[in-house]
C-alpha cells in the first residue's frame, strides 16, 4: 500500500505505546511538498515522539509512515536519513568532542563528494555565521550555538524534508528572528516541519499549524484560526489571549 501521492510525508493511524501510555495515539498526518508546517501542543503531547517515529529512532506500536509515497514504517534511522529526512532533535544532538567544522563535515560528507563536502561546510559556516567558533569543540559552546551547529548539520546534508524540534529553544530574541528568517529561506527549496512553543516565532513562519494533544491531532488549520480556537487555547494556552 502506498501513501498519498500528494504527500511527501504521511502517517496513518500512527501509534506508540510506552507501558500502556499512548504517547502517540492514532495520528493521521499529511504534509505536502514545499510546506512549512508547525506542530504545537503542551509538553507530553507526543510531538517529539512523533518525530522520533518518523526518523526511525523509535519503532511504532501500530500504524504506517510514508515518505515520498513509499512506506518507511520499519526503516532504521540511517535508511530514513538516506531517503532525505534530516532532523534536529529537541536537545542538542551533536558530536560534543569534535570541532564545529568536523561536525558539519560529518554531515556534509554523506551527501557530497570530497570537494563538495568541503565546499558545503564552508557555505553553511557562512550562511549561519559560525566562523567565530569553527575550530572550537562543540561541547564547549553555549546552548544556542550548539543549536545552530545542529541546524547547520541538518542543512549540510541538503535533505528533502527537515524536522526541527524546538529550533529556537535557548536562543535570544535576535537569534530567534534569525532562525525564523533562515527557516523561511530554507523553505524555498525544502519541506520543513517545526515543533515550537514560541507563538511569536510560529506566527512569523507558519502557514498551517497542527495541534497535538494527548498523542492525537486536536486541530489542523491556518495559524490564525488555530491560535484563536477556544479548545486549543483551553488545552494549550491556558485561555490567555494570543497576541
Amino acid at each position, binding site marked *: 500500500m502506498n501513501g498519498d501521492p500528494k504527500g511527501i510525508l504521511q502517517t496513518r493511524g500512527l501509534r506508540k505505546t510506552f507501558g500502556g501510555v499512548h504517547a502517540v495515539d492514532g495520528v493521521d498526518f499529511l504534509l505536502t511538498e514545499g510546506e512549512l508546517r508547525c506542530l504545537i501542543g503542551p509538553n507530553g503531547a507526543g510531538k517529539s515522539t512523533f518525530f522520533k517515529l518518523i526518523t526511525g529512532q523509535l519503532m511504532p506500536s501500530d500504524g504506517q509512515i510514508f515518505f515520498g509515497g513509499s512506506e518507511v514504517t520499519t526503516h532504521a534511522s540511517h535508511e530514513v536519513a538516506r531517503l532525505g529526512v534530516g532532523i534536529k532533535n529537541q536537545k542538542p544532538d551533536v558530536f560534543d568532542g569534535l*570541532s564545529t567544522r568536523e561536525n558539519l*563535515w560529518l554531515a556534509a560528507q554523506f551527501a557530497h563528494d570530497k570537494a563538495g563536502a568541503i565546499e558545503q561546510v564552508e557555505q553553511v559556516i557562512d550562511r549561519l555565521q559560525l566562523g567565530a567558533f569553527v575550530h572550537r569543540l562543540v561541547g564547549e559552546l553555549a546552548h544556542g550555538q550548539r543549536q545552530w551547529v545542529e541546524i547547520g548539520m541538518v542543512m549540510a546534508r541538503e535533505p528533502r524534508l527537515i524536522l526541527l524540534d524546538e529550533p529556537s529553544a535557548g536562543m535570544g530574541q535576535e537569534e530567534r528572528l534569525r532562525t525564523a528568517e533562515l527557516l523561511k529561506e530554507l523553505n524555498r527549496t525544502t519541506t520543513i516541519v517545526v515543533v515550537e512553543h514560541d507563538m511569536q516565532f510560529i506566527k512569523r513562519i507558519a502557514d498551517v499549524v497542527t495541534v497535538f494533544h494527548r498523542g492525537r491531532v486536536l486541530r489542523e488549520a491556518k495559524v490564525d484560526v488555530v491560535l484563536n480556537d477556544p479548545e486549543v487555547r483551553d488545552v494549550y494556552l491556558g485561555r490567555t489571549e494570543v497576541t
Partner: protein
Amino acid sequence: MGWLFSDFRRPAGERPGPVWWSFVVVATAVLLSLPLTLDLAQLLDLSVVFVLALLALSMSFLWGYVGILSFGQTAFFGLGGYVYAVAAMNWGDTTLPFLLGIAIPLAFAALLGVFMVYGKISDIYFSVMTLVITLILNRAMRATSGDQYVIGDVRLNGQNGIPGVPPLQVPWDSSVTLFIDHVYYLSVVLAVLVYVGLRLLLTTPFGRILVGIRENERRIELLGYDARRYKFAAFALSGGIAGLSGTMFAIWGNFVAPEMFGLGQAAEVIIWVIVGGKSTLIGPIVGTGVIQYLTSWLGTQGVGQVTLVLGAILIVFVLLFKDGLVPTLGAAIARVFAGRRESGGGGQ
C-alpha cells in the same frame, strides 16, 4: 611549544603534521639502532613490549576511537598465536602461517561482529561477551591435554601449551630464520606500521565516521551512516591486529599456552591502555612498556604480590590521571610552555 603535543592528542580528522612525522622517523631510527648497544637479553625484553603493544593498540583503537571496550581482545591474540604455532609446526613453512595468524582472528572477529554488532547488543554486553569468549577459549585450550587433541601432527597439550614453535623464516628462503635481534627489528617495524596506519586511518572518512560513532552513534545514524557497518569493520580490523600480536608473541617466545586467552592477560591489556591513555595511540605503546618493565622490576625486587601492586597502580591512574600518562604529560607540558609564552609576552 604546546603545539608539539597537539599532534598526539585525540585526532579529529586532521592529518598529522611534520612534527608528528619527524617524531615517528626519529623514534623509529632510535629504536632500530638500539641493537647496537643492547645485549640479546635486553633486546628480548624490549621485543615483547612492541609485540604486546600491538595488542594494546588493537584495544585502544577500538576503545578510544570507536567507543567499544572489547575486554576479550586476548581471544584474537591467543587464536593468532595458536594458529601460527599449529600451522607452522605442521607445514614447516612459516609465511602462510604468519598470514593466517592475522587472517583467522580477523575472520573470527568478523563472525562475532555479525552477531554482536548487527545484533545491536549494548556496549556493556559487548565487553562482557568478548571477555566470556576469551575465557571459554582459555578453558577449552586447557582441556586439550589428552592424546586425542591433535591438529595434524601437533598435540595441543592442554595447559602445558605448545613448546618449540618454529621461528619465522624469511619468505623467499626458508633456510634463513629470524634470530632474536631480527625479531626485535620486525616487532618495532610492525608496531610502527600499525601505529602509523591507524593514525592515518583516523584521518580518512572511514576513521572520522568511527570517531563520530564514539561521540554520538545516534547522530551518525541520523546523518545516514549505517553505524553497524563501521563498527563491524573496526572490530574485525582490531581482531586482525590482536591476531598479529599473538602470532608475533608465538614467534618471540617459541611457545603458546592457554594463558594467552586468560583473564590475567585480558586485564593486563586494559591496564596498559588505561595507564598509557586510550585517547591517544602512542599512549598504549608507552603504557605497555612502562607496565612491562615495572612488572619485571618488581619481580627482581622480591615483591611477592606483583599483581596487587599493578592493581594499585591502575587505581591510582583511574583516580588521579584518568586520561592516562601520555595525555596528562602532554597537557602538563603544553601548560608549562603556554605559561612561559604568556610571561614572556610572546605570540605563537
